[in-house]
């Protein structure tokens, strides 16, 4: 029953494009599409949550006579699917609500409206699919729909290029998954997940599947070095789609990884955790370092997605390590942390992209160097964005902190591991995680500080006003979710106890029964955290302090000019810019990671011309992995292109040579 509700929601979403094309009036179409999409998402969300909370152990499944007829399209809603479906639906509903307002500013709604619901439906189908064909079909379909959204603004050259890189990378990922499922299904084509689960896989082929999954799911999720498309494509789409892509679609990729590695492949081998952990750690740190180098707000957020994917993969890697060594309780902790981060990242990344979208709508600017001071003109947006920043920077009492804290708790269980490889890797990855968290905080100081604080750097920023109420409502709701999940984490993580239980054989202790809603991952003596008390105390202390001082000391206030060192009326350009802010960090980390160089072009003494500072940042990942491939294809294409311009005689000689070679082969080998 549940699954039928969910599938009919998918059906509704799939039918919406027809309506989008049919309804001529732009305003109505916008309201109808996003309204209905939101309704569908909410209905599906209710069904998924209901299924997850009821935890009856029943797994509704349905087979539709679609796709390969001898196989059918299998759909199944187990706890894992339900959890990710809830994440997709929540993100989809939020994006739809936001779209109700944001979509009205769209210049070419016909390039957005038909694809938006289809994109959401594609993601829902991926998490529901229960056979390889349906899964890959939905997976690629999802990519395709999002591609259309990425190039919605196709007059921008960069967008089309971003869409190109994206779709090629997506197909690369799909190809890897295709091979993985080919291996899993075996030569007889046992494509159903049930068949795959039941089959036994040799260690070698299972390891190959893991490698292919890291390529396939990793490229969609944005694992370094497969992330390059992500910071191009995510910002190019309309902002609510960026939110979906960053916040939700990457999670669907995580789902694919979890589904195959934790569910379909059976018991992990001891070393599997190592590549996952290493990639996760590298991704987390590199993602945030890249983000720090950006001054395009949306691109910065996209790079942060890369970082957070790294954090999630660290959690998954830990879970694999513990599970492989027969420590299901700790594995449950790590997996819970990873899943919590999945949910958290969805909320705050959507929130942040919505914020960036709001800024983009009212100022037309994504470049932070042209923004500033928006907190005065967009206070509500600024407030919500600030909470998002705090949450993504893993600051208590918000939700981002709790999931990272749980991950740290899992890292601290590292000594329980017996094998040297994972054992040594775990603390190192812990260090990388800590590093990325610290850098993220710095990065969001920059993002918020340069965009919303300080003085406006352009007239667009100086004359902005706050956005429509739909957008604001979405952002504030998500901000509330960030807070609630941060202060009541016990209630939240209990929701997916069954998911974890199914995947690693044991679930975390039930948290909601602890006093004061504390979360105690392992034992009370080891570690505990109570977001509620922290929040209440901070609120109480701040309010009391303010009250006491205002009551007993002074509340007088006067506005005056800022300290100007004796140079009044300084131009806003004298403020710290986004790249200026990142300069110290670039110096510390960038010289190694990005081969960043700074060149100062100082005019000779007496010359009044300006000095120039040129900063060169190289993307080593692009240079190492992609450029050679692109160049090789280019060279090959050029070389082979000569074959288009040969004489007939030469073409004939190909035929001749082919004949002689084959006949010779026949003569020599037989």
């Amino acid at each position, binding site marked *: 029953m549940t699954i039928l509700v969910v599938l009919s929601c998918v059906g509704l979403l799939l039918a919406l494009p027809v309506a989008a094309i049919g309804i001529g009036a732009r305003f109505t179409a916008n309201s109808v599409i996003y309204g209905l999409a939101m309704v569908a998402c909410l209905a599906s969300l209710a069904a998924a949550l209901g299924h997850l909370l009821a935890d009856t152990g029943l797994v509704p499944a349905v087979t539709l*006579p*679609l*796709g*390969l*007829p*001898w196989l059918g399209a299998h759909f199944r809603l187990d706890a894992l699917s339900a959890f990710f479906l809830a994440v997709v639906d929540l993100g989809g509903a939020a994006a739809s609500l936001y779209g109700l307002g944001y979509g009205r500013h769209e210049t070419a709604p*016909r390039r957005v409206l038909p694809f938006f619901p289809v994109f959401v439906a594609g993601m829902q189908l991926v998490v529901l699919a229960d056979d*390889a*064909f349906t899964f*890959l*079909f*939905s997976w*690629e*379909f999802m990519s*395709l729909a999002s591609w259309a959204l990425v*190039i919605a603004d*196709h*007059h921008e*050259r960069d967008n*089309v*290029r971003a869409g*190109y890189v994206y*779709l*090629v990378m997506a*197909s*690369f990922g799909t*190809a890897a998954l*295709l*091979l993985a*499922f*080919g*291996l899993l*299904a*075996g*030569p*007889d*084509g046992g*494509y159903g997940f049930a068949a795959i689960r039941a089959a036994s896989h040799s260690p070698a082929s299972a390891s190959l599947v893991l490698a292919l999954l890291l390529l396939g799911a990793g490229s969609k999720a944005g694992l370094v070095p497969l992330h390059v498309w992500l910071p191009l494509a995510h910002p190019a789409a309309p902002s609510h789609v960026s939110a979906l892509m960053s916040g939700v679609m990457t999670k669907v990729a995580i789902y694919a990884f979890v589904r195959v590695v934790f569910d379909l492949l059976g018991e992990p081998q001891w070393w599997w955790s190592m590549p996952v952990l290493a990639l996760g750690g590298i991704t987390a740190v590199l993602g945030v370092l890249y983000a720090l180098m950006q001054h395009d707000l949306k691109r910065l957020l996209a790079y942060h997605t890369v970082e957070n994917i790294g954090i999630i993969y660290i959690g998954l890697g830990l879970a694999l390590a513990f599970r492989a060594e027969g420590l299901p309780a700790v594995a449950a902790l790590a997996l819970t942390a990873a899943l919590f981060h999945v949910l958290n990242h969805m909320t705050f990344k959507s929130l942040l992209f919505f914020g960036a979208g709001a800024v983009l709508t009212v100022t037309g600017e994504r470049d932070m160097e042209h923004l500033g001071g928006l907190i005065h003109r967009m206070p509500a947006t600024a407030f919500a964005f600030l909470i998002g920043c705090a949450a993504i920077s893993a600051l208590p009492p918000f939700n981002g902190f709790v999931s990272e804290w749980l991950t740290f708790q899992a890292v601290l269980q590292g000594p329980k591991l017996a094998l040297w490889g994972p054992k040594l890797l775990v603390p190192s990855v812990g260090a990388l995680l800590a590093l990325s968290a610290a850098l993220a905080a710095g990065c969001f100081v920059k993002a918020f500080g340069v965009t919303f604080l300080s003085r406006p750097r352009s007239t667009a920023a100086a004359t902005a006003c706050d956005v429509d109420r739909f957008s604001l409502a979405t952002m504030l709701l998500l901000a509330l979710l960030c807070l609630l999940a941060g202060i009541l984490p016990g209630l939240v993580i209990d929701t997916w106890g069954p998911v974890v239980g199914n995947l690693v054989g044991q679930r975390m202790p039930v948290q909601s029964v602890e006093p004061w809603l504390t979360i105690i991952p392992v034992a009370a003596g080891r570690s505990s955290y109570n977001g509620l008390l922290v929040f209440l105390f901070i609120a109480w202390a701040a309010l009391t302090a303010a009250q006491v001082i205002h009551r007993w000391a002074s509340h007088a206030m006067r506005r005056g000019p800022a300290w100007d060192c004796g140079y009044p009326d300084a131009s806003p350009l004298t403020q710290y810019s986004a790249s200026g802010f990142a300069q110290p960090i670039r110096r510390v980390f960038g010289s190694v990671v990005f081969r960043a160089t700074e060149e100062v072009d100082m005019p000779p003494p007496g010359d009044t011309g300006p000095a120039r500072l040129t900063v060169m940042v190289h993307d080593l990942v692009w240079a190492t992995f992609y450029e050679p491939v692109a160049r090789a*294809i*280019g060279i*090959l*294409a*050029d070389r*082979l*292109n000569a*074959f*288009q311009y*040969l004489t*007939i005689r030469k*073409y*004939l000689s*190909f*035929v001749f*040579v*082919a*004949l002689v070679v*084959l*006949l010779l082969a*026949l003569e020599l080998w*037989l």
Partner: protein
Amino acid sequence: MTVVPSDAETLVLLIPLAAAAVLALLPGYRVTAWLNMLASLLTLAVVVALFIQPRPAPSHYLLIDDVNIVFILLNSFVGFTTSVFSASYIGHELHTGRLTPVYLRFYHAMYQVLMFAMNLALVSNNIGLMWVAIEIATLTTVLMVGIYRTHQAIEAAWKYFILGSVGIALALFGTILVYKAAQPVVGEGLDGMVWTVLMANVAHFDAATLNVAFIFLLLGYGTKVGLVPLHAWLPDAHSEGPTPISAVLSGLLLNVALFAVLRFKLLLAANPQAIMPGPLMVILGLTSVLFASLMLYRRRDIKRLFAYSSIEHMGIITFAFGMGGALANFAALLHMTMHSLTKSAIFFAVGHVSQVKGTQKIADIRGLTETHPVLGWGLVLGVFAIAGLPPLGIFTSEFLVVTSTFAREPLLAVALVVGLVVALGGLLLQLNGVAFGPPSAGTARSEASYLPLFAHLALVCAAGVYLPPALVAWFQHVAGRLG
């Protein structure tokens, strides 16, 4: 001859032949265009009847079995839709002065001759007759390719002609060798060339003769399939001829040639001492995929672009047939069907595009989705279909080819996948410019009918989501017979 044959298998041949004769005599392109459509429709109807009715017993010359009826059906269907497209398309060529009424008459007559030749090749139970049919098809298409009489067209036709003739000669030598191999077993005379007889006795044939024969046949008919390195005629012939002919070439003629290769593959596979024909086909197929996918990047002519894409897809189909096995054969059949539908749809779209933009140069076609949303998105959909993206049919067949191969020959599957991704990259790179970005000049409405284009796309799309179980069962049955 006064005897009117009543059986449908002869009608399949007679209708196009008669139509060709009539069309060659009638002036006035509107009437001939309609007649052309009508004849194609009639053929299609007969083929459907043929499909439904029980299989007739094979004669010395003609044979309808479960395998070739699939090809015939596909052939007649695409032949019909193309004639619909052609009817609305070719008038424009007359208006722009690219064709004269005389040539138009010739064009329509040749169209039916081509249909006849292809059907003959498919229904023939005689490897000699099949050879003759394919030769006729070659000659016909050579004339059609050169019909615009521009330098480029004549050059393309000439190239096609020479390469095709050499291919044909090699195929004939192979055919003679097959007869030589059969002669000691089945005796002299006609029986030595009858396919069903050959199949029944092939196990006792001399394997060494068959081996040499197969190499000649593979290269001979492979030239017509457009397998690399025998492909050189294909891109030029596609780009210089009239667009409906490009659609027929890509969608049908290549299949017919492939069918010929397939027949001899079956023959060899049934002889235990002969070489395995599969690996040869796999190698040629893979070479074609990799080569053609790289060639996509530097194309400047839109029709030539899709011609290379045809080479790529014929490579995939050959690869899959070469791999063999029920799943791969099924995938190959499905892929062939989907490719025929999609590629002809793409050529329809390209025909529209070149009419509205007045050029075939990719660099001069820009932002199509903006100036011609329906056409532009139709083309985008077609390219996505051909690139193997869901929800379109080729995704299914590529899924099956790759997954079934990977479990057996991982390295081959990886190579194939590399080819597929590279090809997607190339196609998309070109599509990006054509369909998106600021539009180029040329906002005239297309006068030709969109119906065939979207009918094909709708079929491909529907097949991507839902394959009727009856069709699948049928294909599986055929795939099983293909070994």
